[in-house]
């Protein structure tokens, strides 16, 4: 029996007797699923070329042959609040709880390239991350942590070069071997213009600063992922899974093109490009997104950009459960959401994972909430059996069909972006803003019309329960002010002046800025001072608000 025969002769009469529930079955990207998937849905699908084997082109089934049988994903919990000392304590607690890598959250002044004692920083110091204004803070932040043994991810974008330089300077001061330093710099400025909005300079010079790391990284810190091309923030800002996939890959290709324009060798830089996906509630759609991402990246890197090194074709990724999916109502329910999302990331083949704490919608996580989130990963890893078989969902009629559909939809968007003149043109025209605002609004409407049920929000509602939250000590501002004053007082003024002059020259003449940033870090130039040098050269970007 063929599928459509079954639909008409068996399913339809049954559905006439027992009607389908009146519910919106479409995915969060508005892909309308059929009631059933069979081999008939995969007529043009070629397992040999579309799937291949894990660790082999096109990497649909994963970038490593043995996946989690060889090594589990890195359990990397994002942490940072208050002063460097406080975050250092949390880092040590997380490592003690069995976490396998660090991930640093910086506060808004740091993300925006301002010192803690800048007037704009008032009220924000240490609030949604840790304040790092100079090498002195970096030294305290990583006190007692060996950079040759623990890999560190840093969620920093516009000031990425400066913060990375501080991390490297700290390792150098300890006599560490830069060839052994491992970690990831987020450093994806394009998604800032599209989604998170922590930009400083206009797009073109901002991208050139990113390409400086592409050029300098492989030669100096070869194991470091100098970029994590991020879909996460695009998704959180309202995009669908398909938009997240398409816009992020388009960003990745844009960086590749700019690096090639600079004359860099694709097979030298591309192996260190990494990605970062959001994992939302739609279980199969998320898994399909991961698989489609790897296939698109591998094919385009090989066929369009001429990469030959297999490592250039592998899309390695970090993932984080969707903060935006976690409401403030009945926050303990978020533990269940995070577990399911974490499972989807693992079945999607992620290399590292952050699971959100249940109090995401309330404040920064308490230590207890962060521990449950980490335990959730450990339960997935050790108790469910999913880590014992590589890509266990391959060949599922539905998962493969959905992977194909998401791939096609994303490729459509990528072509559209190329046709409009590329990502920077799309940023300037407000294309991304308009697409995402539309999707966010549509989703909100669906929830409010109860076309999508969010348990505890628009159905199964109950009285609010108070849960304890993490409070930030306002004294952190004073700590930072004191330390900054001390840094300014005690540093060598001559060395400091020379380092800033070096950075200015590099920016004006278009040389690679990384050596100058490193000199600034060693000279204890503050973050604000280095960013100001470039503000004078590049100017600042103001976006046009699109509603």
């Amino acid at each position: 029996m063929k599928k459509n025969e079954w639909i008409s002769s068996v399913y339809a009469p049954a559905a006439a007797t027992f009607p389908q529930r009146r519910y919106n079955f479409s995915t969060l990207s508005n892909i309308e699923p059929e009631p059933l998937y069979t081999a008939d849905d995969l007529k043009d699908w070629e397992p040999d070329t579309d799937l291949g084997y894990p660790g082999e082109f096109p990497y649909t089934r994963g970038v490593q042959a043995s996946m989690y049988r060889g090594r589990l994903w890195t359990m990397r919990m994002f942490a940072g609040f208050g002063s460097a000392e406080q975050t250092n304590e949390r880092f040590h607690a997380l490592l003690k709880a069995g976490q396998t890598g660090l991930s640093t959250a910086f506060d808004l002044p740091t993300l925006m390239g301002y010192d803690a004692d800048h007037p704009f920083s008032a009220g924000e110091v240490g609030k949604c991350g840790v304040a790092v204004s100079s090498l002195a803070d970096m030294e305290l932040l990583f006190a007692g942590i060996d950079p040759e043994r623990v890999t560190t991810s840093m969620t920093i974008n516009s000031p990425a070069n400066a913060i990375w330089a501080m991390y490297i300077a700290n390792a150098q001061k300890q006599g560490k071997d830069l060839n052994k330093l491992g970690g990831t710099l987020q450093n994806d400025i394009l998604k800032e213009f599209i989604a998170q909005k922590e930009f400083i300079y206009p797009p073109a010079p901002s991208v050139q600063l990113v390409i400086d790391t592409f050029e300098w990284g492989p030669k100096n810190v070869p194991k470091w992922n100098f970029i994590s091309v991020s879909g996460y923030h695009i998704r959180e800002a309202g995009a669908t899974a398909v938009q997240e996939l398409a816009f992020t890959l388009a960003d990745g290709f844009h960086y590749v093109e700019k690096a090639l324009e600079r004359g860099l060798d694709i097979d030298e830089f591309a192996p260190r490009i990494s990605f970062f996906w959001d994992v939302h509630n739609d279980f199969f759609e998320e898994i399909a997104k991961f698989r489609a991402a790897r296939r698109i990246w591998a094919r385009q890197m090989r066929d369009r950009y001429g990469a030959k090194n297999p490592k250039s074709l592998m899309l390695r990724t970090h993932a984080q459960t969707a903060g935006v999916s976690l409401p403030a109502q009945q926050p303990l329910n978020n533990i269940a959401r995070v577990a399911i999302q974490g499972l989807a990331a693992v079945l999607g083949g992620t290399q590292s994972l952050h699971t959100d704490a249940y109090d995401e919608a309330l404040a920064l996580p308490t230590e207890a909430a962060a521990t449950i989130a980490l335990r959730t990963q450990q339960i997935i890893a050790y108790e469910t059996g999913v880590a014992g078989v590589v890509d266990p969902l391959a060949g599922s009629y539905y998962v493969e069909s959905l992977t194909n559909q998401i791939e096609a939809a994303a490729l459509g968007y990528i072509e559209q972006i190329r046709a409009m003149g590329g990502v920077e043109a799309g940023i300037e025209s407000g294309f991304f803003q308009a697409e995402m605002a539309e999707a966010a609004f549509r989703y909100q409407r669906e929830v409010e019309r109860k076309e999508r049920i969010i348990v505890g929000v628009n159905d199964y509602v109950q009285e609010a329960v108070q849960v304890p939250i993490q409070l930030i000590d306002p004294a952190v501002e004073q700590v930072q002010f004191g330390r900054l004053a001390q840094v300014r007082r005690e540093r060598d003024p001559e060395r400091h002046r020379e380092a800033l002059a070096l950075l200015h020259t590099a920016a004006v003449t278009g040389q690679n800025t990384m050596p100058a940033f490193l000199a600034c870090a060693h000279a204890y130039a503050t973050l604000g001072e280095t960013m100001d040098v470039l503000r004078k050269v590049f100017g600042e970007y103001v976006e046009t608000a699109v509603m």
Partner: protein
Amino acid sequence: MHESNSSAAPERRIRVLIAKPGMDGHDRGAKVVARALRDAGMEVVYTGLRQTAEMIVNAAVQEDVDAIGVSVLSGAHMSYFRDIKRLLHERGADDILVFGGGIIPDQDLQTLADLGVGRVFTPGANTEDAADYLRTEVGRRWQQESSNS
């Protein structure tokens, strides 16, 4: 201020300013609420990112709005609300309702209420509730205004 109408005129539309103070670039919620309020028949001004309290209050007074919706997800909500309320008071514009949205813990809601801030809509809130709230609260203020004049 507003042209006084002889009765509570149905054609008078609520004017709302949606604001993102400070460095926080998380504008999804602010934009969704802005669109929802516009769909609910209100006149909505969205001032975009990185506004200081002064810029927000200036825009509110200039645009002659009935309410300011302030969205903060960074944890720095207290100082922004405090500054906005203070500046409105200094401009003699206490009649403008200030309401909120974002990641704002329950513990802070009472403090905000004591400052005179209206309802705060946190993740999972319903935009229709926000529209209803504005109709009720702004309507109440209009009635006070007309009984005082």
